[in-house]
């Protein structure tokens, strides 16, 4: 076994530790970050573990610097990551746009807490779902994943890095105050097995321009130090990477940046369908909250209510097909005033109900049950 690698086996970890270890298993060797509750333990774990593997860890002066550093590192070929919480994402959103525009693969973890502002730093929130997609400038698509258990927090990191590299796009990796600090027992397979599943970014063919896309709309990525004289800019640019400040160039580039993700949305969608086949009411949920929802659905089934759960693991691009395919009523359970409710409503042809809580705690299974009783009457 290579130096610094984990042994296969069971570990008792928090979500923060699982996110860090999952990233390392997925090939991440560069981390820049700034501490913020409830994500700080990710930085602590990375500070401990990355040097053991010869990787790089740096604590920057703020979140703006952190994301700038990982974009720089990404251009050298690193699988690079940062972690923060909602207020930190606000600071990162400026350069998230740069990562989108220059098509730099990065992973940004957001351990969501109660918000707005400093809100409830140590407690769960799910108010950054829209921020994850729409926080930066302009029209763009990115990938947002959101696990629901500590095991999944570890496992899904491989997908996060693979999507980032495959589509040259930033990936927002949502966890929440509950997952971040909760400990569960998880199984770590042999790291070599995980490494076999690593997807590497495409490399340009001889003579291929730095922003010349292949048929999949993704341009292979040149790296710093290869003598390719890369030029990358946040300005609207042509396929050489040179600024081209015309409506035509804007139309071409921004369309492609959106379509390179939407074209592959079925590859990116990960959704858990729990007892939905015969369901008359489906609760849409995600993250820490979904754990209670599942229990609530089970309680409802015991009462003969035909309930099911759709757990969105991919939040963005929104897995709309999973909404469209059911004719059941929907309940959207989320810890905010109602965000994904609107997305579900956009695609559902049946009634959609809100089950919201402003954050700080998840719904109890009884609260979910109560809502299901109401809706199914």
């Amino acid at each position: 076994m290579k130096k610094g690698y984990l042994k296969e086996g069971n570990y008792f970890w928090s979500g923060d530790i699982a996110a860090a270890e999952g990233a390392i298993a997925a090939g991440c060797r560069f981390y820049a970050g700034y501490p913020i509750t409830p994500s700080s333990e990710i930085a602590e774990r990375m500070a401990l573990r990355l040097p053991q593997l010869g990787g790089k860890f740096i604590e920057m002066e703020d979140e703006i610097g952190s994301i700038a550093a990982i974009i720089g590192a990404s251009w050298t070929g690193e699988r690079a990551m940062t972690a923060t919480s909602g207020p930190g994402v606000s600071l990162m959103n400026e350069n998230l746009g740069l990562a989108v525009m220059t098509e730099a693969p990065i992973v940004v973890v957001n351990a969501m807490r109660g918000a707005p502002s400093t809100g409830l730093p140590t407690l769960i929130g799910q108010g950054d779902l829209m921020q994850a997609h729409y926080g930066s400038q302009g029209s763009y698509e990115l990938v947002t994943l959101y696990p629901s258990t500590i095991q999944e927090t570890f496992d899904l990191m491989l997908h996060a890095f693979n999507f980032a590299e495959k589509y040259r796009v930033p990936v927002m990796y949502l966890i929440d105050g509950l997952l971040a600090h909760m400990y569960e027992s998880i199984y770590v397979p042999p790291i070599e097995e995980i490494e076999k599943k690593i997807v590497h970014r495409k490399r340009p063919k001889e003579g291929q321009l730095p922003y010349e896309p292949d048929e999949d709309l993704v341009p292979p990525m040149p790296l710093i130090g290869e003598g390719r004289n890369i030029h990358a800019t946040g300005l609207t640019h042509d396929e050489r990477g040179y600024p081209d400040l015309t409506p035509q160039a804007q139309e071409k580039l921004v369309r492609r940046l959106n379509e390179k993700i939407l074209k592959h949305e079925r590859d990116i969608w990960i959704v858990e369908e729990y007892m939905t086949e015969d369901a008359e009411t489906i609760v849409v949920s995600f993250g820490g909250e979904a754990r209670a929802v599942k229990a609530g659905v089970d309680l409802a089934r015991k009462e003969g209510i035909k309930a099911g759960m759709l757990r969105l693991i991919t939040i963005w691009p929104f897995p709309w097909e999973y909404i469209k395919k059911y004719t059941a009523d929907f309940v959207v359970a989320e810890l905010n005033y109602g965000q994904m409710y609107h997305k579900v409503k956009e695609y559902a042809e049946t009634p959609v109900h809100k089950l919201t809580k402003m954050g700080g705690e998840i719904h109890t299974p009884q609260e979910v049950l109560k809502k299901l009783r109401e809706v199914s009457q």
Partner: protein
Amino acid sequence: MSIFEDMRNKQEELLRTERLPHVWCPGCGIGIVLNAFLRAVIRRKIDPEKLVVVSGIGCTGRTAGYVNVDSFHTTHGRAIPFATGIKFARPDLNVVVFSGDGDLFAIGGNHFVNAARRNHDLLIIAVNNFTYGMTGGQHGPTTPTGAYTTTTPYGNPDRPFNIPHLAISLGVPFVARWTTYHVNQLQNSIYKALGMKGFRLVEIISQCPTVYGRRNSMKSPLSMMEYFQKNSIIKPNASFEEMELTYNGKIVVGEFRVRTNIPTYEERFDDVIRRAQNEN
């Protein structure tokens, strides 16, 4: 071929000549600084494949678009942390941040002080033209007190940064200041800095005739150059007060601090890796 002609040819190779003429106004000093920088790079025999230029936003931020090496035009103020990521990931590369005073010291001020404190192995070429040129000549963190800009129509009540002194206070191993009039000294200082390690700062007082000079009775490119010529004093051991820039006052220039063997962040992190791996 004379060494000058050889240099000239190599300089053309280091430029994205298909993008010339560049965006800078007639008489803008940024081109003079870029000219000096490229000559210093050639004299140092730096492999262009190992050279990375990172710029922020603004007039000087456009520099990255003209150098024919791996070059990045990043976001406003963020050139230093972006460059930090590149250097930290690939310590074998020569990473140069080429940006303006507003970018580096106002919006990017926090990054500047912290990267300087950590002593990252970066060369910072800071072009100081006393103003925000790209946005139309607003006052910035280096505008002298009393100067007229579009946002200080009654004279600047604000106080400018004393950039070399700021850098010295942060332990920066190489701190120099020249004006665009000092083409040879400037080139030599960049040449010297390229041969050193750690965080190196070269501040260049540069002319912006279009939006700064025009409002401060130096309308033509040459009148700004004349100001630099007549008012510059070379004084390497200058005091804090002497390094301060005042409205139409003296400009103290020189190499204010030259220190070798201060370990860089990248070197200190190598020790971290060694310690972490021995404990395994």
